[in-house]
């Protein structure tokens, strides 16, 4: 390809030699920082748990593992529906895109709903992050790290659901085509990342 130096520079024209479009590259880079953010939370959890194992109980004593296992399965399903939505628009299938996006949103929202239900129940049972409430049992680090990690993950899912809803709104207006589907692709990347983080969190918070 001959990059003619005399061609007028069109700001809308992608720079030559670009491998990945900006938005997608930017999302990948942003997700790297998200990895580091969750690393700081998970790393702190590991250090605190090794220093004070007496604060933790056996898996399943306080936390409801089976309910969360169902929730984990739901989130994995939503990654599948997200893949389906992306595959649909790649083929130019507008109806498929909308349907699969809607499915992803509904499953994502139910994940948040179940987590909210779980939190309410746990707090009702007295499992709170607050130190003062725990001086007797000495399990406050368990509660604090639990809410910290699952809470920030839940916030990520919530933001994902809101963004997906907006993508669906744009899809209804026909904003995406088989040539141009950047919004669908980057929200998909984000969604899969959030899903992956959950699988790690589920393992270390509920199962270990």
């Amino acid at each position, binding site marked *: 390809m001959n990059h003619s130096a005399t061609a007028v520079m069109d700001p809308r024209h992608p720079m030559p030699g670009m491998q990945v479009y900006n938005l997608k590259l930017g999302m990948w880079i942003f997700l790297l920082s998200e990895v580091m953010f969750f690393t700081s939370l998970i790393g702190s959890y590991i250090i605190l748990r090794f220093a004070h194992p007496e604060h933790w109980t056996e898996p399943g004593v306080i936390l409801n593992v089976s309910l969360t296992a169902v929730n984990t399965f739901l989130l994995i399903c939503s990654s599948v529906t997200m893949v389906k939505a992306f595959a649909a628009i790649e083929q130019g299938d507008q109806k498929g895109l909308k349907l699969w996006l809607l499915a992803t949103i509904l499953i994502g929202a139910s994940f948040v709903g179940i987590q909210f239900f779980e939190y309410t129940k746990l707090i009702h049972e007295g499992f709170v992050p607050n130190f003062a409430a725990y001086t007797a049992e*000495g399990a*406050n680090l368990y509660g604090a790290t639990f809410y910290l990690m699952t809470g920030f993950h839940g916030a990520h899912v919530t933001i994902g659901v809101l963004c997906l809803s907006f993508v669906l709104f744009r899809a209804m207006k026909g904003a995406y085509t088989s040539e141009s589907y950047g919004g669908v692709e980057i929200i998909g990347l984000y969604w899969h990342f959030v899903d992956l983080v959950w699988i790690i969190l589920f393992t270390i918070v509920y199962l270990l």
Partner: protein
Amino acid sequence: MSTAQLVSSLEKEDRTQPGYTDEGLHELSFIRKYVFSTDHKTIAKQFLFLSLFFLVVGGALAGMMRWQLGFPGQPLPGGGVFPDTMAPGGIILPEFYNSLVTMHGTIMIFFAIMPLLVGVFGNLLIPLQLGAPDMAFPRLNMASFWLAVVAGTVMMASFLVEGGAAGAGWTSYAPLSTSGEWTGVYLGQQLWLVSLIIMGASSLTGAVNYITTVINMRAPGMTWFRIPLPTWSLFITAILILLAIPILTGGLIMLLFDQLIGTTFFIPAGSGEPLLWQHIFWFFGHPEVYILILPAMGIVSEVLSCRARKPIFGYHAMVLAMVSIAFLGWVVWGHHMFQSGMNPMLGTSFMISTVVIAVPSAIKTFNWLGTLWRGDIHFDTPMLHALSFVSMFIIGGLSGIFMAAPAVDIYLHDTYFIVAHLHYVLFGGSLFGIFAGITFWFPKMFGRMMGEGLGKVHFWLTFIFYNLVFFPMHNLGIQGMMRRLYDPNEYEFLQPLQEMSTFISISAFLLVGTQSLFAFNFFWSMFRGRQAPANPWNSNTLEWTVPSPPPHGNFAVMPTVYRGPYEYSSPEVDADFYPQDRPPPGAGPGGQAAPEPTPGPAPTPEPVAGD
């Protein structure tokens, strides 16, 4: 901004996406042009004014601190304006002194040096040096600036709340920082945390933008090893910011929860781990140290090569040294914690990694000297600042070797020796690098030359007073004076050092006062300076091929790059510079070999300022 708007604006960000619109094609209202601008050059200037404001604030805080240290217990001139909770009758209280120490460090690091290097030069130089029309995400760029404004406002507001501003040091070690019970500062400490979380978001959005731009928006021919060193350094800095800031954000959130909702992550009374905070803080903090110096190294490399009219010595080694710093910077954080009670074996391994990271800095220093060797050195103001960077960085680097030896660090840790060391790197290094950058690129930013005579006076006075302030601090440290003491005279063995403290304080006032020359020169030149040509320094990089200041969209024609950025005094051309976009002799305008070799158009030298 709602999430929907955020996604919508994100989608419109990408020029390759259908939602993208470009505002440069039509006239913009005043607000869109100067306030909510998406032009990277305007955002660079906005960051410049914001961070220079905070530089003044940080300097004023330092001045008050030095008053107390130079003239302990005497009323601060004009100190009557402070309420009795800070300085009754102008006499600074210990709790106010702790706030001054904390806020001086915080503001200088997060709101002055970091935005000056990354916000100003990252925005200004990355697109221009790469030959790009703008950043990859112009609106995200604007968001980055306004987040910094919000963060700065919150930080400044903390002075006004009950209990005053944060007073647990810029490192805010837990558990001192976890409760007002220990410091008397409640809301101020929380605002400190909130402000830094917001500032982190600002830095992150900037970093995503810079990295994407460098990877994706290079002009044809701008291969990785033709990228000018300032842009290389900013690219590596952006990667460090991207990976380090979220770690700090995680820690800040946990500390905020300890304060607000009764968690005990860092509070030993609830089985929390105070050292966990230190590990998080310094795991972020050491990459942060390099965030604060790498861009200055890039700027200085550019100025040295250009004003010595000689190719940078060892371009590849310069890049590789920065890359290795970016890797090694992650495994040295423990050297800030030698005396914190960590396992002594762990201390030894941090000592080894620490001395290894000294090597890339040594390589860079020798390469700068190599660049000057057999050069044709022009002593303009930017060059003076750049040379002063090199000589001060040598001192800062050498004094670091003392603390890298943990046995010697036992004595020197938390003394004025550390204060001297960090200021030789941050002021002698970063700030002289910033002055070099501002004076060098001022014509590109504002279209006018900066006053050269006043610039030189400012340089020499700053250089002299700076050394009078910070060099004696080494001696104070060796005599054992601890940092962050409200009144060292409490200790009998420190009383003989009061004379030196007073000397340092007077020098510090003169140093601060000297900066008014810079401020005057800056604003005077902005409106009254000589009109700047496109390339006043006869430089090779792409930003000098467009008018000063460059128009929206930067390049009328997409430039093609034929060579590296430091081809000064090349035998191929008569002039002593050879711009990156100048076609080589025997090449047609399209970059293809012409049928008959014709002599290449030699660049026309333009008058050089200050000669």
